[in-house]
Every structure is written in C-alpha cells, then in structure tokens.
C-alpha cells in the first residue's frame, strides 16, 4: 500500500469510527464519492463530528467555511487537505 493509500484507509476508518457507521467497512467508501448529500449521505451534524475528529487525529485546526467544504468533499479531498498540513504535524500523528 502506498503512503496515499494508507492515508485514505486511515481517513475512512476515522469516518466510520467517529460517526459510528455500523456495518460499514473502508472498502465500501469510494475515494472520490461525495461525503455529504449524495454518496455517503452525511449531514451537517456529521460534518461537525468529522471536523472535531480530524482536528484531534492530526493535531490541526480547521478554520473557515470554504476550507471546511473543500476539505470534506470526499475522502480524496480530505487526504489532500491532510497532505497540505505541515510535515512535522503529520509525522507526530
């Protein structure tokens, strides 16, 4: 598994665990599928939960509506967002 694949797998597990999506496995979430509305069908309460989970997991702060919308569009977008955080933060996480 590449580093990117590892990160995506980790994010999928984070989504499932933090939202308590019973019966769901990482394989069932597509990298490019929208997380909200269509696709996984999450709502704004889930978004709040995901922001908190991601901030905790990667010791970062997620500010601004635009950033949040972009960062949580899909698993791929989440991975790009995490990549854009500085390296030292990531290596600690």
């Amino acid at each position, binding site marked *: 598994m590449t580093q990117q694949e590892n990160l995506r797998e980790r994010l999928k597990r984070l989504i499932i665990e933090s939202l*308590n999506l019973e019966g769901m496995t990482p394989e069932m979430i597509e990298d490019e599928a929208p997380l909200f509305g269509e696709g996984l*069908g999450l709502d704004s*309460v889930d978004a709040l939960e995901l922001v908190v989970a991601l901030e905790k997991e990667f010791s970062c702060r997620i500010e601004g509506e635009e950033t949040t919308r972009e960062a949580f569009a899909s698993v791929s977008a989440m991975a790009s967002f995490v990549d854009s955080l500085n390296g030292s933060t990531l290596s600690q996480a």
Partner: protein
Amino acid sequence: MKVVITGVGAVSGFGWGVEELCRGLESGATSIRTPSVFDVEGQRTTLAAEVGPPDADAQMEIDHLRNLSRADIFAVIAAREALVRAGLEGGGPRTGVFCGGSTAGMAECEDFVGRIVGVRPGKPMLKLLASQQLNGPGDAVARDIGACGPVVGFSSACASGAMALGAALQAVRSGEVDVALAGGADSLCLLTYSGFNALRSVDPGACQPFRKDRQGLSLGEGAGMLVLESLDQAVARGAEPLAELAGYGASCDAHHMTAPHPEGDGALAAMQAALKDAGLEGIDIDAVNAHGTGTAHNDQSESCALRRLLGDRSPEVPLTAPKGALGHVLGAAGALEAVASVVALERGAVFPTAGSAPADSDLHIDLVLENPRQLPPTSQTWISTNFAFGGANAALVVRRLV
C-alpha cells in the same frame, strides 16, 4: 367550520403503529415493564412503558433517519403513519406542524454527559447534543414531510400534546394552514424518571388509575400524531374523515407547582371551555378518556371535576384511563390519548383501563375494566383530558361523524 381528523399515527409501549396501540388497549393488558434504555436500579419503581425494538420494516425506515433523537424518531414515524392514513403524500407551504413535548433529546444529552464522565460506554459524540432543543421533534417532522407552514413546539408539561392539538385546530379554523400535523412526542430519560421517583409520584408496580390502592404513575414514552383539516377539504379530495375534532379548552389552576386543585376547578373550566367551543354541554358527553395518572391527588381531583361537569350522570358515563396501559407519556400523552379516542370511536367501544385492583368506589365514576365496552350506536361524543404540573389543563372534544 368543521375540522376533522383524517389520519392518525402512534408509537407506544405496545409498538410502532396504531394497530399495535389498538390491539394492546383492547386486550386490557399493560405495556409497563422493566425498561432497558437505562439503569433503573435503586429507584422507587423499576418499571416504565418503554417502546420496544421495531420490526424489520420499521427498522429500515429508522436506519435512514440520521442524527435524530429517540423522541424525534417517534414523532417522525407517527407523522408518516398519519399522513399515509390521510392519503397525503407530504407537506407543502400550507401544512403546519404543531408538536408537544417535555424533554425532546434529553435522553441523548444524558448519554453524552455520561460518556464524558465515564459512566456510560462509548464516545461522547456531538450528534447526541444535536436534538436537545424542545422544538426538535416538530422540526424533524417538518423536514421529513416537507411542511413549510408554521412549525410550533408546545411545552406545558403533561398537557403539551393536547395543547398542540388545540392550537392546530385553531390554525385550521382560521385558515392559517390547510393541513395540520399535530400531536406530541417524548422519550424516557433519567431526568423525568428520577424526578418523578424522587417526588414519590410513582407507583412501585404498574400504575392503577382510579383504583383504591393506587400509589402513583408509571412513566412511558412514544408519540401520537394526527392530521387535521377542514371537513370540506377532506370531502373534496376524497379522504375519509375518522372523526371530528369539535372543541378545545384550556385553563390553569394557578394553585400549586405540582398538585392539582383539590376540587378540580381548573380541570372543570377546561372541560367546560372545550364543550362550549364545540357547541355542546355536559349532557352530550358519551364517554371520557381520562387523564387518570394513578396518583392519589390527580384521580381524586379529576373525578371531582367530572362529577361537577356530569352531575348525576357521573357514575354512568363510561370512563377509561389509558395510562394504565401506556404509562404517562408526558408531553405526548394528550396526543397518544387523542389517537386512542379516535380508534375507540371508530370501533364504537370504550377500551378497558389496565390494572387488576378494584375501582375506587369513592370516586363515583364508571371505570371500564377488563374488556372493551360496546357503546350504543347513538353515542358519538368523547372528551379527552390532560391535567399537568403547574396546573395546566387541557380538554379536547372528539366526535364521531354522523
């Protein structure tokens, strides 16, 4: 304008649906048992009328409802059932939601706090806080059915559900809405469970309304939702009205924080106001759906008010108290009991009051026990009452359409 009930939906200790409610009430059995939603050890009672797990079909429906509290889910499922029964597909700009309740997502908030302090398993997920507001169940219904008219929450303790129906009745009459989804929803939570236990208002066994040895109420949970619209509209769209919601009245004892007025002054005023609203009098009442909590005070005060309303007829007017079977569903009680009255009217029978002890003969009422009692075909008018903490009283007059 005649306002009619064209749909009913219910979630109760007997299960998910009006049919389950009806079968349960007809049987004379109680749905009060040991609850599983939280630990009840050490309380004065360890019983409640908990809503059990749904069947597979209902569970599928519920699985699609994300991030809702238990009370929200009860309200949504009952509203969907009421809409289907009414033959309506959904809401719209002229549909309003009027929903009573007393604790909304309190049970989920308790869970959240319990997880934070480590006395409940699991992570303190934010969604547990999402529906703590009292307007939660009504809002959830509006979103679910797409009701874009007024959406209003009512919280007047145990009279909430009846008051929501009263407001809906007025909104249909005034033309504010064409269709009203009205009722109430509440779920069991530690706040009310421990509160009523601490007040010693609960019977250690299943509650026994209007019985000699009654010791208090039993709590319950669930929802009742009704579709209201004008008779003209119902007829025009080919719907079959189940009953007429003929009158509503409310009052306050202004007397005590929890105890009712001993002679039932406020209860009498609410019932008289509801009858006046319906253009009827005490003599017209054929059956009573009583508040009947099973506390010494309520049942005494309520029967006193009924004697004052019905006069010499009091010992002959059949009376049922659904709380023996459903427990006290607090903010949903008036709504669930209104649904019970509608289905009883349809069957032309009064359901029995669950419980095994003999009726309290000092109360001079005709308490229906053990089996449903068939009413003569001429009988058509029920009064359904709710008398709450704070002295808030509400009464509804429901009539069979002839």
